[in-house]
């Protein structure tokens, strides 16, 4: 019975023990943040904040102590992550590195790469971005064309990456490049690219809300030294699949709209409008469910199991959930969303209404996730 394994997980006492500490830290660090600032959720970027988080010992928490990691459990890390997201902390400067780039290097990187990069991530100094998507390679990631050619002492990279979140602020990119044009999947390799490399031009792509979050990255004869190849040439595809399962596994996949739930609750508490009260309850039932599912995925990570199928389920169900929230709020509350002026509810509604389309695109689209789930069901 059952296609998936969502084994129930309970947080151990040492994980729960962290919660008050994280809350106290956030209460102080975020005391000046308005609701609409918090609504940025994990898209909010603040390198200073990330350094402070690093100083608390909350980055690289599960990594081995020999690299400066915390040697702690995935459950402890989970508590820190969920508290940060729920509070709307600006975590983006460390999020990608802590979630996937660091674990990638731990698994596939060289000793030298680990010793050089991991401590910088752990201290909150190094910000990473992900260079996978290209103009002609979105969902079909294996269609990657950006080319890395072998040259003396390294690789010469030419091509274009797009939608690269945070490339303008990042110090490094984990780039997926083609090292062999004959072999679609087996011809891909991953590299660590220094964002200050000459020949690399990062230009902003402004999103529909007028915000600068993602970028275009053009590579013109960018030199990447041999020591920055991750794994061996041709192992990029398998590594990326492993990396994506980390990317999809966390609580950020259902909490993007938590600030709007809180605002809706505020309005409901004022008005006592029965439809609003009921909807807040419905959303809490969904949130409670998703949290248990997400916690169960953390349990899989803790046991060293591959979380990719269950993580895809959580991201799909979580994406539908978080994307529905601006729709629900707009239907129930007869207030116009406002970009300028207006109250907290109106501002948060405006912000998240315009963010919501991305929830089922970034990190793998809904259709692609459902394809993965269908494979898990034995349909493909």
């Amino acid at each position: 019975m059952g296609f998936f394994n969502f084994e129930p997980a309970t947080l151990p006492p040492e994980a729960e023990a962290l919660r008050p500490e994280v809350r106290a830290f956030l209460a102080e660090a975020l005391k000046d943040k308005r609701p609409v600032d918090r609504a940025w959720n994990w898209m909010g970027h603040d390198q200073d904040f990330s350094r402070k988080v690093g100083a608390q010992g909350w980055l690289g928490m599960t990594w081995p102590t020999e690299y400066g990691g915390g040697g702690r459990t995935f459950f402890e890390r989970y508590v820190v992550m969920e508290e940060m997201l729920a509070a709307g902390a600006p975590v983006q400067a460390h999020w990608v590195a802590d979630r996937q780039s660091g674990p990638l290097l731990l698994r596939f990187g060289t000793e030298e790469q680990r010793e050089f990069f991991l401590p910088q991530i752990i201290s909150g100094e190094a910000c990473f971005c992900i260079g996978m998507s290209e103009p002609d390679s979105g969902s079909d990631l294996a269609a990657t064309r950006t080319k890395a050619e072998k040259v003396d002492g390294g690789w010469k990279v030419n091509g274009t990456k797009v939608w690269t979140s945070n490339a303008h602020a990042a110090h490094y990119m984990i780039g997926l490049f083609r090292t062999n044009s004959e072999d679609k999947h087996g011809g891909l390799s991953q590299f660590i690219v220094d964002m200050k490399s000459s020949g690399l031009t990062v230009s902003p792509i402004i999103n529909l809300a007028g915000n600068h979050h993602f970028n275009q990255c053009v590579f013109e004869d960018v030199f990447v030294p041999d020591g920055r190849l991750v794994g061996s040439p041709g192992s990029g595809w398998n590594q990326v699949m492993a990396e994506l399962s980390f990317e999809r596994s966390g609580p950020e996949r259902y909490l993007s709209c938590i600030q709007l739930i809180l605002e809706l609750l505020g309005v409901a508490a004022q008005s006592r409008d029965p439809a609003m009260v009921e909807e807040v309850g419905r959303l809490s039932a969904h949130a409670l469910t998703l949290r248990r599912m997400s916690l169960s995925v953390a349990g899989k990570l803790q046991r060293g199991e591959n979380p990719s199928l269950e993580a895809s389920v959580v991201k799909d169900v979580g994406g539908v959930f978080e994307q529905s929230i601006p729709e629900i709020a707009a239907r129930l509350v007869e207030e116009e969303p406002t970009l300028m002026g207006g109250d907290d509810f109106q501002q948060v509604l405006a912000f998240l209404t315009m963010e919501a389309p991305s929830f089922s695109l970034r990190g793998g689209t809904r259709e692609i996730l459902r394809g993965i789930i269908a494979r898990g069901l034995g349909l493909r």
Partner: protein
Amino acid sequence: MSELRNILTDSVNGLFGDRVTRELLTRFDETGDDGGIWAEVEAQGLTRPLVSEENGGVGGEWRDAHVLLSAGGFHSAPVPLAETILASWLAEKAGLPVPEGMATVIDGSDGSLKVTGEGSSAKLSGAVARVPWGSKAETAVVVGVQDGGVVVGQVRLSDARGITASQNMAREPRDDVSFDGAPVRVAHLPNDLPQDVVLQYGAMVRAAQIAGAMEKVLSQTVQYANERTQFGRPLGKFQAIQQELSRMAGEAASSGVIAEAPFAALDAGQNPEWQIAAAKARTSEAAGVGATVGHQTHGAIGFTYEHSLHFATRRLWSWRSEFGGARFWARRLGNRAVDRGVDNFWADIVSG
């Protein structure tokens, strides 16, 4: 999983897997006859997972009951397993004798059932609609009102004044029962139980049954999609079908995860009220997706009586409305959230 839970899982799935066939369910629909499986359910001790060994039970945990309830839901077992498990637990917990045979629970805590008199002369009066298995059960464990307080009582259904048969969509008995001075054994409501214990725990067991039935509809539908060929390919190869089945799988997985939550809370000694509310609200919403996608994928054959899909889908459609539907439980959660305020919302999600 505990040893006991493994044994219970194997025996309940063995029994229902073998015996609850389409023929049996058809006969149940036509005549109300369970083909003798109730006797086997009892013989294997499946009705008393929560009753102590000294009273002839298994002495198990709530999660042991959970595996039985979801298996009952998965197999569409046409017996009052959930109701008898609850009635037996509540009776023992209140210090009343554990009922023999089929039993059910009745909520009269709103004053619809009243107890008068003391000790051996205590009498029960009042009327309650849509009592699950009321016409089949021998005993009812009721929650009623006496002198303004709430008590637990045990009554023989043969002592009812009237039982008017009624059914849900799955033809499970949901009968209107009235009492007029029926002899009743009375006990205090244990003080760790809420006055609406029947409503809450009833919702909890239905959520577990729904999660089981969701799993059934999902596996039947996946199997059908792999077998049925159109345009030279199995249906499951079509992307439109894959997308819908994945959506349904997400709803089934969500149901399974949240339905287990209140049982785990009880085993951890916690008050399960909010997990119950979340479980019933969430599974009741998922039930509609399960039934809709299941039927769409099966085409016309799934719309026939001949095909077995409807045994699970008619139960999903019925169970989602019983012991409070999605809106009822969402309102409870919403009222709590509003009362507790914005500052406590996240803390309450985290603590269950």
